[in-house]
């Protein structure tokens, strides 16, 4: 490894967490499809249950294949460890459920994936956890939303689909002043574009379904702890984190902050969260994500190259009224993105056609290389027309509040030959224009 630093990104993407299997010599990571792992003795069994010794017991709690994924993503993010989960939503829920209970409060960005917005606005509220939503760029709004019972700040690195960049440094400062951590959804950027922990975030999670896996084959999530947030100090100052800094009778009266100065969150999240809520990841799915991560650097570079070409093409097209990508000076996050995301602000973005809902449909139907489906971050290019699919029940006024018009199209730029992508878009734009004639 060069100099006094961790190995480089691509080396970690290939090697972190994995060595040749000592039993078989297998070089690739084996898929350990075993629910359970044999104890050496009764004493060993008791020691594992009591956290005296570290090891695998049951695959809902941990699994050797999943552990490789957890170490690898931790390495890429600069974290201290991670927990893989059944989905990105499961990672978000695990984080919230580990840190708080009824009576708690979250301050979250308005620019969230719809599923996250649902979880916070509707579902967690049913369990007594309230959320205040703040526009990600409204720095004073973040501060003003803090309540005595606030336990968490939450935002996305770049909001979906408007790509509003979260000023992680400024927002994390406000969170830390309030004695709470900042959780960041880094799904759309991946650590190749941005490492939120280096900017001040404390916890990061991914829908690994997207770019980490990268091939549209698997549902998976992962939450990474940066080890930076001092739960014990915050609890001593304002009593916010008894979940981690007080004896927990649900687990041997353990005081997690005494057991680990920097890793209390992960201890409780695994030992309570995976044990009780059980949203674990299949080892087979973990392996598929690992397979994707091995080429993450190569893929992200190509995603960015292709995205730049598509953005340039669309921005110059007469039938396009707006392209929502920070590459363009017209984007509200252009300056912040250049500073925080020098390699690019992602390949999922939206643009507006000068046309009706029907013309939007015609555009999507005419595409041949882009696939019309509800996902992002695939190696294949994807498209969706929000007004007729994900947001079809919403009025024009409600759509406008969300930054969506009848002509808004969301793209996820894949790895195809860029000339073919541009040709496909040209053909579809012609079809959309004709549909309005």
């Amino acid at each position: 490894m060069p100099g006094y630093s961790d190995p480089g990104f691509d080396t970690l993407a290939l090697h972190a967490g994995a060595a040749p299997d000592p039993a078989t010599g297998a070089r690739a990571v084996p898929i350990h499809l075993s629910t359970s792992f044999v104890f050496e003795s009764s004493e060993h069994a008791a020691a594992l249950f009591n956290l005296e010794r570290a090891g695998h017991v049951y695959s809902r709690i941990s699994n050797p294949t999943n552990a490789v994924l957890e170490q690898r993503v931790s390495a890429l993010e600069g974290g201290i460890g991670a927990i893989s989960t059944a989905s990105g939503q499961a990672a978000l829920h695990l984080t919230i459920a580990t840190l708080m209970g009824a009576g708690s409060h979250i301050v979250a960005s308005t620019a969230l994936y719809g599923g996250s917005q649902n979880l916070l606005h509707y579902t967690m509220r049913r369990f007594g956890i309230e959320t205040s939503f703040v526009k990600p760029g409204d720095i004073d709004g973040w501060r003003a939303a803090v309540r005595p019972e606030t336990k968490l700040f939450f935002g996305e690195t770049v909001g979906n689909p408007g790509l509003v960049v979260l000023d992680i440094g400024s927002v994390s400062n406000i969170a830390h002043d309030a004695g709470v951590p900042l959780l960041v959804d880094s799904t759309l950027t991946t650590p190749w574009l941005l490492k939120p922990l280096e900017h001040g975030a404390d916890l990061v999670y991914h829908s690994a379904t997207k770019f980490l896996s990268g091939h549209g084959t698997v549902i998976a999530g992962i939450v990474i702890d940066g080890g930076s947030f001092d739960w014990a100090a915050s609890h001593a100052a304002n009593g916010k984190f008894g979940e981690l800094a007080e004896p927990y009778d649900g687990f041997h009266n353990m005081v997690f902050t005494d057991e680990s100065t920097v890793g209390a969150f992960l201890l409780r999240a695994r030992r309570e969260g995976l044990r009780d809520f059980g949203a674990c990841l299949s080892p087979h799915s973990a392996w598929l994500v690992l397979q994707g991560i091995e080429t993450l650097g190569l893929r992200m570079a190509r995603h960015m190259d292709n995205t730049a070409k598509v953005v340039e093409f669309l921005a110059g097209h007469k039938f396009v009224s707006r392209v929502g990508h920070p590459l363009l000076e017209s984007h509200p996050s252009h300056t912040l993105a250049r500073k925080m995301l020098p390699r690019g602000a992602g390949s999922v973005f939206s643009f507006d056609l000068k046309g009706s809902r029907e013309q939007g449909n015609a555009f999507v139907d005419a595409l041949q290389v882009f696939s019309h489906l509800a996902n992002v971050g695939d190696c294949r290019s994807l498209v969706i027309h929000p007004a007729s699919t994900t947001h079809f029940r919403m009025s024009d006024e409600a759509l406008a509040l969300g930054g969506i018009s009848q002509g808004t199209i969301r793209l996820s730029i894949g790895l195809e030959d860029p000339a073919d992508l541009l040709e496909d878009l040209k053909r579809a734009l012609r079809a959309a224009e004709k549909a309005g004639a």
Partner: protein
Amino acid sequence: MELIVNGRKTFCYTAGKPFDAAKPTAIFIHGVLNDHSVWILQTRSLAHHGWNVLAPDLPGHAKSAGDPPASTEAACDFVLALMDAAGVDKAALIGHSFGALIALEAAARAPQRASHLVLVGVAFPMKVSPLLLEASQNDPEKAIAMVNTFSHSTLAPPPSSLGPGTWLYGGSRALMRRVLASNPRVNVFHAGFKACHAYAGGDAAMLKVTAPTLFVLGQHDQMTPPKAAQSLVRAAQHPTVVTVPGGHQMMLEAPEAVLAALREFLQP
């Protein structure tokens, strides 16, 4: 639990177990810019198998008040005072790196108070390179990166302090940053390295130790390579040497092997 040592609040990890005077006691002493938590996979086990465990944060580190010890001898004073405060006459003294020098000095200064001596990742002399000494004072983040690189030996460690999925490069870095930030008055990083660097009494101390002594050395340790412990091994009256497959942070990189060595050695 909290003890008052020399009038200062001192945090001691006990694995949540109350102190029991009927049990033997093991004192675990951490190294430079670490705290009690580096011992988690050894302390918790011993505490649940017949031992009182006292794993303090050294003065001025993490949750313990006071000034960081300015020398190995001063740190030894602290350990003996800690034993007094806890009402412990005799204990197994277990130290890692700088903590190993402290344990050695204590076992030499008060041989009757050391039932066992365990030196993990030890070297004598424990000279610190001028570059690292300087960086620890003027560019601690650079020094943390250096120590982190030198202290780990594998990109694929086994399940460790946080269970499966622990990433030790990140964990050690986060702990060092946290301990450094825990003392805004004194740079505990530089103070610790200076104390290691200045300690001249190792061989003489080893000759005075009467307790059986276990050396736990990391096969891939770049900070304190096994060969750097050999003068102490030669000077020890009752040495046992165990080499484990890990780097300098072997308690975390090879937790099972370190624990097995400890349990074998500490058997009554």
